[in-house]
Structure formats: structure tokens, C-alpha cells
């Protein structure tokens, strides 16, 4: 008499699948997830926040992704995430698309400030640069393509300026284009890096390179240039003090966006980000915390560098 044998392998796999999903729910009270996506500049900051918040509040698990401010906004418009990190402001057409798509208006919260630092190789003799010179290096039809045009000689003998840029999904890219290039297009042919750290790493290993990134990404093996707004102005270095005093010409706000009013758990998280604990993490990560003029407590007042 024959027996009907169910294929053993399929049975095992099915049980495993059921087991996995079942076990996942039996692990005590399930932590709620909060989805954060967006700016690569703010990625390490967002991760530090998520780590600290997770230790403080075990009922919430924060999922952090990068990809660039553009990715965060795109995902927010689809309703796939809760919070979008942006290192640039929302464009009017994006706000309009959000309104049209979801019926909600994006809400903006400032959670910190950042200086856009210009990096060169450690052995590059250049110390200062002006916004106009940066524009000539980066824009379409720009006239500066050799280091000798800027009056410096690179030790390794390579005269061509290797232009390091970010990819178009990056808020840093958009900010630079808006404030340094006055919304003109970038020249093609620059090395377009994915993350802020890649820019710094590439510059560290390429003697003739120049690039821009958030000041929190500085490492000892690259040099940050002092930037002047116009010829004749003094050139300022990207430091906490210079950003707070509005001396450094290319500084920007770090923003988070939600669709409409955030729900309770998200609102609590945003509130925590703006609290002294959250802002201390901003300062520890290398960015500039949100400080009012009368704020004397660390990280804004006594104890800052």
C-alpha cells in the first residue's frame, strides 16, 4: 500500500517560515518602529540619536537610512517613512507634490546647523579661497581648472584640479549649487561621490583634489580651507563659533521633515532631539547645536571651543 509522502524539504521550510514570523512576535512587547531616511550628512548624527534614544526608550526602535536628502524626501512623499532628514530646504515643487499626493503639508523642524567645509589634501599649500573662485572651479564653463591658476604648486607635480563633488541626491550638493553656484549647473566630469565620508577619503589620497562636505567629516589627514564671501572680506574657518556668529559664508540648517502633524511617538522623538540631551549629541557629533542668543549652558555657552 503506497503512502503519500509530503516532500520533507517543503515541510521543513514551511515550518521554518511560520516559526520565524511567530517567534518574532513572541519576544516580549514588540517595539514600535520609527523610520528615518535621508541626508548622508546627518547620517552619523541620526545614528547617534537612534542609539541613545533606543537605550533610553526601549519601546521604540529607530531605523536609520541614508541615501541623500533627495531620497528622504522621495520616500516621505510616498508615505513610506516617518521622518526625512534634510541638509537643505524643501523645494516649493516638492511641497506642492506632497500636498497633491497625500493632502498633507510637510512640517519642518530645525535640529542643528552645519558648516560646508572645503577640503584639500594635507600637503596642498592653499589656505584660503573665495566663493567666486569655488564657483569658477565647479560650474559649467568655469575658468579655473589648474592649481597654477590659483597660484599654488602641488608637491606631486600634478597641476590639474581634481574636482570632487557629491551625487545629485545629496542635500549638500543642492545647497552648494544654490549658494555657491547661484543655481547654475555643475560642470560635468567631476567625481561624484556617494557619501560625505567618501569625499574626504578621496581627497586624503589624491594630492590634487578639492571637495566639499559637512564639517563633521573632517579628519586629521585633510585640510579645511578658510572661505571668504567676496574678495576683500576676511576669510573664516569652519568652526562652531564662526557658524554661530554667522561669519562663515556657507553654513546651513539641518532639518527634519514630517508629513503633516507627527503622530505621538514621532512627536516625542522630535521633541527629544531638540532637548539639551539631543543637542549635546549634535555637538558631540561635530555639528553646531541650535542655540538661542541667551543660551549659556553647554553645548551652546561655556565649554564650547
Amino acid at each position, binding site marked *: *500500500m*503506497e503512502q*503519500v509522502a509530503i516532500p520533507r524539504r517543503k515541510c521543513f521550510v514551511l515550518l521554518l517560515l511560520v516559526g520565524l514570523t511567530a517567534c518574532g512576535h513572541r519576544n516580549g512587547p514588540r517595539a514600535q518602529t520609527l523610520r528615518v531616511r535621508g541626508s548622508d550628512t546627518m547620517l552619523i548624527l541620526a545614528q547617534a540619536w537612534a542609539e541613545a534614544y533606543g537605550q533610553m526608550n526601549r519601546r521604540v526602535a529607530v531605523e536609520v537610512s541614508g*541615501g*541623500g536628502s*533627495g*531620497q528622504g*524626501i*522621495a*520616500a516621505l*512623499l*510616498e508615505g513610506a517613512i516617518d521622518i526625512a532628514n534634510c541638509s537643505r530646504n524643501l523645494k516649493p515643487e*516638492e511641497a506642492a*507634490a506632497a500636498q497633491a499626493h497625500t493632502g498633507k503639508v510637510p512640517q519642518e523642524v530645525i535640529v542643528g546647523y552645519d558648516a560646508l567645509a572645503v577640503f584639500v589634501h594635507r600637503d596642498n599649500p592653499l589656505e584660503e579661497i573665495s566663493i567666486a573662485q569655488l564657483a569658477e572651479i565647479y560650474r559649467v564653463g568655469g575658468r579655473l581648472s589648474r592649481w597654477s591658476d590659483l597660484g599654488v604648486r602641488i608637491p606631486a607635480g*600634478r597641476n*590639474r584640479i*581634481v574636482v570632487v563633488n557629491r*551625487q*545629485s*541626491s545629496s542635500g549638500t550638493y*543642492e545647497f552648494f*549649487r*544654490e549658494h555657491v553656484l547661484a*543655481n*547654475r*549647473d555643475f560642470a*560635468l*566630469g*567631476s*567625481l*561624484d*561621490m*556617494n557619501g560625505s565620508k567618501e569625499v574626504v*577619503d*578621496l581627497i586624503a*589620497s*589624491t594630492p*590634487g*583634489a578639492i571637495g566639499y562636505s559637512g564639517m563633521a567629516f573632517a579628519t586629521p589627514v585633510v585640510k579645511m580651507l578658510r572661505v571668504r564671501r567676496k574678495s576683500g572680506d576676511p576669510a573664516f574657518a569652519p568652526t562652531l563659533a564662526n557658524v554661530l556668529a554667522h561669519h562663515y559664508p556657507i553654513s546651513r540648517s539641518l532639518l527634519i521633515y514630517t508629513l503633516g502633524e507627527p503622530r505621538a511617538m514621532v512627536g516625542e522623538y522630535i521633541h527629544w532631539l531638540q532637548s539639551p540631551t539631543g543637542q549635546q549629541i549634535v555637538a558631540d557629533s561635530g555639528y553646531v547645536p541650535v542655540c538661542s542668543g541667551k543660551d549659556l549652558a553647554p553645548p551652546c555657552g561655556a565649554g564650547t571651543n
Partner: protein
Amino acid sequence: MRRWHQLSEVAIEALIRLCGFSATIFVLGIFVFVCREAWPLWHNDAFHLSEFLFSIQWYPTSAVSKHYGVLAMIAGTFSVTLLAMTMAVPLGLGAAIYLGEFCPSRPREILKVLVEMLAAIPSVVWGFAGLTITSRLIVRYTSADVGVNLLNGALLLALMSLPIIVSLAEDALRAVPDEYREAALALGATRWQLTWRVLLPAARHGLVAAVLLGFGRAIGETMAVLMATGHAIHLPTSVFDPVRTLTANIAAELGEAPARTTHYQVLFLTGVLLFLVTFAVNLTAGLIIRRERRP
């Protein structure tokens, strides 16, 4: 009891047919879906197919005027792949000849296992090696301005497609009937003459197919070229120029383009282009092998 057997038999056959159909539908559905997402471009006034294929101006997010030309990326993909093939094909064929004809049998098994291990390395690990190891070597030992460039990407792609070329070429050489070898040896040929004059011509269909499949692998590679080629939009003029490939372009910009915008659709169209190219390469390889079987 017999009724139960018959019913279960019918049920299982139905399940198998269902799986067969749905699996093939899923797999073919990729092409249909990708085409469907790119289809609205046909009616889009801002998009011109001639600009897409023949212009290097890629400005999908411009505040001035948007352009969607991928010629620089097409040039990047083909230059990296062709340079990789010039390195990989001779090495791969030579290695396959050694494994097939000159190698004693015990070391051959071990060496074949090593080649399979080479094939198993994930592309993100190759990209990491390209970013940290080989780019620094290129900057130090050549006159290149920057280490992440065409040469770097080609080196990685060559190492990634070598295992495919070696194993398929070795299979092709092994498939040559023994009578050919025996006849040549009986006429007094050395193994070198046997290989050069008899085996390579006899196995040429399989060898060409092996090269084509290695080519297909190299064209479709994403992560390694994303991390190691420098991602710059221009037509490369030297092997030390950084380039951007079609695959890296999609990977870098996909998440940013909001769904159903022109940018999103152009990226899907790039996917269609890649799909067609790899499909054509694989199809040609398959036809060449089939023609060999019907002399």
C-alpha cells in the same frame, strides 16, 4: 484509499503546473514591469530618445534646464567592460588550457575549487578592495591623478569575470572528443601543438560562448563599479580617467527620484537598455552553443 491517491496526484500535478507557470511569469514579469514603468516617456515632451542615447548632458535635477543624456555612461560601461575583457580573456583562456591539458589531476581539483571560490566573492567586497587597496596602488605607482578610475574598475571586473570564463572554457575544451587528442598525439604532436592547432579550433564555439558570458557578467556589475570607478560623467580619453557606468548611475540616483517622475522613468529606461544588452549577449552565447551541436 485509491480515490485519495488519485485526488492527491491531481492536486500535486496542479501545484506543479501552477509553480511552473507562476515562476516563469514572475521571471518574465521583470522585463514587462521595467518596460511599463518607462513607457510614459514615449508621450513625454521633455524627453527625446535621441538626446538620451547620443548626448552626454546628464542634468536630471537641474534648476536651469533638465537634460537626460546617457552617452557618457554608455561609453563608461563599454570602456570598462572592454578593458576588463582584454585582460580577462587571454588570462582566462590560458588558465583554462593549463587546467585542462597541462595540469596533473590531483592539483587540478584543488585549483578548480580555488577558481570557484573566486567566483563566490560578493561584488561589494571587490568594491571595498577597489576603494581601499587598488586605488591607492594606482595613485602611487602610475601617473594617474586619481585612484578610482577606469583602470581600477577594469581590474576588478576582470577578476570578477575570470572564473566564469575559466570554468566555461575548461568545459568547452573538455567536451572536445578524445579521438581528436589521440589522433594528434599519434601524429607526434606536442601538447602545445595539440592545443593550438587542434583543441582551440575545435572548441571555438564553447570558447566564444564563455567569453560572451564573462562579458555579460562584467556589463551587469553594479556595486564594484559604483565604489571603484570614480563616478564622473565624461567620455574617457585615457585609462586613468574616472568614468560612470549605466549600472552605477541607476544605483546612485534610484532612491532619490520620486516615483513616476521623468527622472524615475529615465532610470527605468536605462534598466531596459541594460536588460536588452545582457539579454542579447546571453542569447548570442546560447545560439553559438546550439549551432555547435548541429554541425
